[in-house]
Each structure stands twice: as structure tokens, then as C-alpha cells.
């Protein structure tokens, strides 16, 4: 009996052990660098900080401050609003353009391979380079953009210095930087569509717009899901570009402030403006995590439901 049990269970337990062994490194890394910091942030968010160390346990006081008490409340909703604006702007500009470019590349027009490389090229640049490059191009006095406008007698604005244009300018730089990525993802989705389906539509007299909206769009739903979710997460983690093209304060006048900047400024302070408050900062981080997590789950459910097996 014992020998029989050993014969039956041994391969299974060996397999389980082997799986556990393979998963262990990833699990340890996840626990150390993701789960543990998250739990720490959650714990710290319930404390009032005395300088740089946790003081009294204050339950939800930090959450109450950042969500309901002036002037923190205004800063939180202002930053959240900018994240939402960035998400929709990127969905329309970055992903909308990516869809059109991907469709054009799908048609394999002459030179499409070169174009594919050119579109993807900025993606390999670091955010620091992109920010520096666009700061130079948009410089209010010596920038190429304003010099070009000057040729037509137009005095370009201080793109990054005035509230109406600052956020849009950074979004534009982001579109330039990242457009290649959704283009490739959407193109890969389009290339999975059977050529026969597209040719049949064309024989039936469908034009490009009809094919794109009625056939391609529904059939690339899995790719759209990936692109949408990644854009959402990216928009709510937006940090490097606004930090380097504007600054930690979300200048000018908080017009480029986003949640990640606000969180960082609150938690870690800044030599030139503020002191550190890990309690409030952690509360912001927890709220960001919950918001992004919840919306991502709901969005994934919805987007998956409209996916069609090709």
C-alpha cells in the first residue's frame, strides 16, 4: 500500500517541487520589490510622521487630508484631473495616430519597412533624452519650433511656461516618444487578420475607412485591450516627462501636476520647496494603486468581453 502510494504521489510531488523551485526566484523578487513595498506603504499611510519617522497611529487621517481637506484636496483632484486628461489625450492622439499608421503599414506600400523603423525609433530613446530634446525644440527664445513659426510672422508662445500650452506640449512629446509602440502592437493584431477577409471586403466594394472601422477595428480587439490598459497604467504613472520638461512642482502653476509628481513631492520633499511626509505620501500611493488597479480590472473585463476570436 505504502509502496503504491509512493509510486502514485512521487511524480506529482516531484513536479510540484520542481515548479516551486522554478517559481521561487520570481516570487522572492516580487515579494521583495513589489509586495513588501506595497505593504509598507499601506502600513505607513496610517501613521502621522514626526519628521522622518512614524509617530502616532492615526487611522485614516492621511487619507482624509489628501481626499477631503483643503489645500491638499485641491492638489489631489487637480493632479488626478491631469492624469485623466493625459489618458484621453494619449488615447486619441497617440493610439489614434498609431491605428492609422498601423493600417497604412499593413497595406505594405513602397518603403513601409523604413517607415516602420522610423515610427518605432523614438521608443528606444530614454525619457531623459526625449525631455531634453523637446525642451530645446520648444525653448521660448532659441527653440526651432518658435523659429519656424517666426518665419510666418507668428510669435510662438512659451510652450512649457504658460498654463494653456504646458501640459499639451508634454503630451505631444510623449506621443512622439511612444507612438511606435502601439503602432507595432496594433500592426501585429492587424497582421493576424486573414487576408481573405480583407480581400473579400474589398471585392464587395468596401473602402479603406469601412474596412478599418467595420472589419479591422473589431478584429484587433485583443490588441486594443493591451494598448488601452497599458496607456491607462502609463498615464497614471506619468512621471519622468513632466518632471524633466516642467519640474517637481508641476509648473507653471500646477498646470502639469500629475499624481506621481504630487506623491513624490509629498513623500520625499524637495530641497527647494517642501519637506518630507511619508504618511501623506503613502496614502497617496495607496490611493493611486487602488484606483489604477480597480479601473484596470473593470476595463479589462469590458474590453475582453468585446474581443472576438479570429
Amino acid at each position, binding site marked *: 500500500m505504502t509502496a503504491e502510494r509512493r509510486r502514485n504521489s512521487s511524480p506529482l510531488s516531484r513536479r510540484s517541487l520542481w515548479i516551486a523551485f522554478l517559481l521561487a526566484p520570481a516570487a522572492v523578487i516580487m515579494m521583495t520589490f513589489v509586495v513588501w513595498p506595497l505593504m509598507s506603504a499601506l502600513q505607513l499611510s496610517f501613521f502621522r510622521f514626526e*519628521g522622518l*519617522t512614524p509617530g502616532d497611529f492615526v487611522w485614516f487621517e492621511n487619507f482624509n487630508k489628501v481626499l477631503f481637506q483643503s489645500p491638499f484636496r485641491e492638489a489631489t483632484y487637480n493632479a488626478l484631473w491631469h492624469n485623466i486628461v493625459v489618458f484621453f489625450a494619449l488615447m486619441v492622439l497617440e493610439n489614434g495616430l498609431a491605428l492609422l499608421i498601423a493600417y497604412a503599414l499593413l497595406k505594405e506600400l513602397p518603403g513601409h519597412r523604413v517607415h516602420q523603423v522610423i515610427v518605432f525609433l523614438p521608443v528606444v530613446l530614454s525619457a531623459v533624452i526625449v525631455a531634453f530634446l523637446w525642451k530645446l525644440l520648444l525653448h*521660448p527664445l532659441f527653440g526651432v519650433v518658435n523659429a519656424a513659426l517666426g518665419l510666418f510672422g507668428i510669435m510662438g508662445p512659451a*510652450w*512649457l511656461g504658460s498654463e494653456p500650452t504646458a501640459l499639451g506640449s508634454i503630451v505631444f512629446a510623449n506621443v512622439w516618444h511612444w507612438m511606435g509602440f502601439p503602432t507595432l502592437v496594433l500592426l501585429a493584431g492587424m497582421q493576424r487578420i486573414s487576408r481573405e477577409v480583407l480581400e473579400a471586403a474589398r471585392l464587395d466594394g468596401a473602402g479603406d475607412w469601412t474596412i478599418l472601422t467595420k472589419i479591422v477595428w473589431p478584429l484587433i480587439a485583443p490588441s486594443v485591450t493591451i494598448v488601452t490598459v497599458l496607456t491607462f497604467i502609463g498615464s497614471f504613472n506619468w512621471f519622468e516627462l513632466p518632471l524633466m520638461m516642467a519640474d517637481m512642482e508641476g509648473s507653471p502653476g500646477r498646470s502639469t501636476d500629475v499624481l506621481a509628481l504630487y506623491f513624490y513631492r509629498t513623500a520625499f520633499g524637495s530641497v527647494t520647496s517642501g*519637506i518630507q511626509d511619508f504618511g501623506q505620501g503613502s496614502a497617496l500611493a495607496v490611493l493611486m494603486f487602488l484606483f489604477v488597479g480597480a479601473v484596470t480590472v473593470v476595463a479589462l473585463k469590458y474590453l475582453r468581453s468585446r474581443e472576438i476570436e479570429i
Partner: protein
Amino acid sequence: MTIAKLVRTVLLGGITAGLVTNAALAADITFWTWRQEDKAAYEQFFAAFTAENPDINVKFEALPDDTYPTMVSTGLAAGKAADVIHTHAYGWLDQFVRSGYLEPLDQAAVPSLANFTPDAIEALSFRENHQVYAVPFATMTLGLFINKDVFEKAGLTPPTTWEEFKTVSEALKAQGIIPLANGLGTSWFNEMFVSVFTGPFLGSDFGAELSTGATTYKDPRYAAALSKLLELRDYMPPNYAGVDYDTAGQLFLSGRAAMLAGGSFDIANYRKLNPAINMDFIAPPAASAGDASHASKFYDGGYAVNAASPNKEAAERLVNWMGTAEFGNMFSNTLGNISPINGVEITDPILHHVAELNQTAVPHLNVVYFRFGKPTGSEILQANITKMMAGDMTPEQVGVEMTNGIATWFAPFQGK
């Protein structure tokens, strides 16, 4: 054992014990700073210190400027920080003291504390009990840089009053020269710009009144002083809203702009960037003829001892030495900054002038008084001043925002 063997053993033992004792006496201590660019100078200072204190070696380690607070607090929390920490003053110091990370200093252990004025000591003290925690290292003065060559070529003299400033600026503009290089593209620099031009209008008592709550930023004097800034828009570069700190410096150094409201911390930097520059650093324009003109001033920071340092005695000897006139002279004349140590002789003519301005300078308000809680006065001013300059807020509204924001943690402003 023969007698010769015995003698050899005793001698060897003696030498070994001597070496061990010397090694135990010698201390290697570490110094942390955000001033990577001053590495050579500090290594020179520390070599001079070690020459006088052969049992102490000091290792210089610079951390990145923008993440310095985070790295220092993390290092201190983990017990891995340096023995001597270069700290900023006021609220920045306050949060480290509150956490128990820094060693309180007194004149018994650090006699050179007697070499400082009371306001220098107060800047590096814990606000609640006035206990000093660091040896002050530099004053920063905010005033007006003047490109003397540009003024000479234009046949003008630097302004001393507000009206003169406007007249001179009109004359400079007529000659195609940008009168004032400042823009509004860098938040922290904007706050200094505000301090430079409002200081003379607010006068010497306003800061003290604010600090006790005798008045607030809703005071009409503050709104009146802020409204003066609106007049400067005509004299700033085109698209000034986007002109940042670096660009302003370039405009000034290249001679495209005649004046720049800035800090004495840039004197050495500007000389390095343009060794041929013929410049001066003067007080900002007085409100009117006959009025006193006040530059603004703050203490940049100090040298503190890590409370958990295993080499506390050696660290205290170092910070004590960093409070002596010997160090102050080296510091000022090598790094081009003003040491606040009594008895320091400043030979450089511009720095000498800055030291004179310090005698009547008013406090850089938010840095000195309102960086002890969140939101800091600096955060609120920096967020709102660009709106005011763009015409989206009035000076009165800026004063209200500042008062209400600071009132969330500063009791004397509450209910006002």
C-alpha cells in the same frame, strides 16, 4: 626560552601593541554632501584638517543633489549614514532633528559655535527648543547682478531706486538690451525673484511680524509689494513665462540682458562660465529715494554630526574645526561663498560687497519661517506666482492662498 628570545618576544609584543593602540586611536570618518562640484575644495580642506589632527582622516562622499534628502534620510534610518552630514537649514534640518538622527551640539564639545551670530545659530537650531544641531556653513544673499560692461556701453548707471530701475530699464530696452534676464520657468528661482524685488518694499520688520503671527500674508503691504512685480513684466525677456534659470543666466552672461535677480551662490558659477564677465552684485532697488534698500538672506545649511556615528568624538572635532576662522577663510576664498564665521576676511571685492549687504538684509521669508510644515510657504508661492504674473490671480489672492495654506500647520495664522 633563552634571554635573547625573551627580549625579542617582549619587543615584538610591544611594537604590536603600539600599532594596535595607534590604529584604535586613528579614526576614518565620512562626510556626506550634495556639493559634488566642491569635491576638490573639500578634499583640500580635509587635508588641512588632517594635518592638524593626524589621528582623523575624512572621506568626502557626494550624493546626487535632487535626491539628497531621500538618500540621507534612508541612510540615517538604516544606520549607514556618514559621521558628518552636510545639512540644509530651517525646516529641512527640523525634520531630521525630530527623528533623532542628529547629535545636539554645545560649546563644550564644539567651542567654535561661539564664532557665530545668534541668527546663524538659530537657523541651524531646532525651532521648538532652540537647541543647535549643526555648525553654520554659508549665507546666501539675494540681490541684483549687474553686467557692468553692458551698463558702461549703454552709458547708464545701475539703479538704486524703483523709479530709477524703470527709467534705466526703458533706456536699455530702447537700445535693444533686455533689462532683466529673469523669467518664470523655474519654480525655486521664481521665489528668489519675488524675494529680491519685494524685500525693499516690505522692509525689515515684516518678517518678524509674520513669524509671530502679528500679521499674515493677507497684509496689504504684501499685496502692494507683489503688485510691483507686475510692473517688471515689461522689462523681462520675450516669452519670459518660459525662460528658466539656465536661460536667464545665459542671457545675463552673454550680455543680452543687463541685470539678473539672483543669489550670491552663483557668483563663483558665473565667473567659471564666463571668466571675462565684468559684473557686480548690488542691493535691489529701494522703494523710493532715501529709503533703505534690503537684500534678502538665508543660511544655506550646516555641518551636523550623525547621532548614531561610532566616531562621534572625531566628528565633533571636525565640525568644530569647520566653525573656525581658519576654515571660514579657506571656504570663502576657495568656493566664493560667504562664510558666516566671525573673523573671516573676505578678500574678493564682490563677495566683500555681498558681506556688507548681509548686514542689512531681510530674511528670505518662506525659507526662514514657513518650511516647517506641509504645505510650505514656498510650495504655495511657487505654484501661484506664475498665475499672478500671467494675470490669472491678483496679488491679494496670492496672499490669501498663502495665509490659508500655511494656517493648516502654523497656529499663529489660524483664524486670520
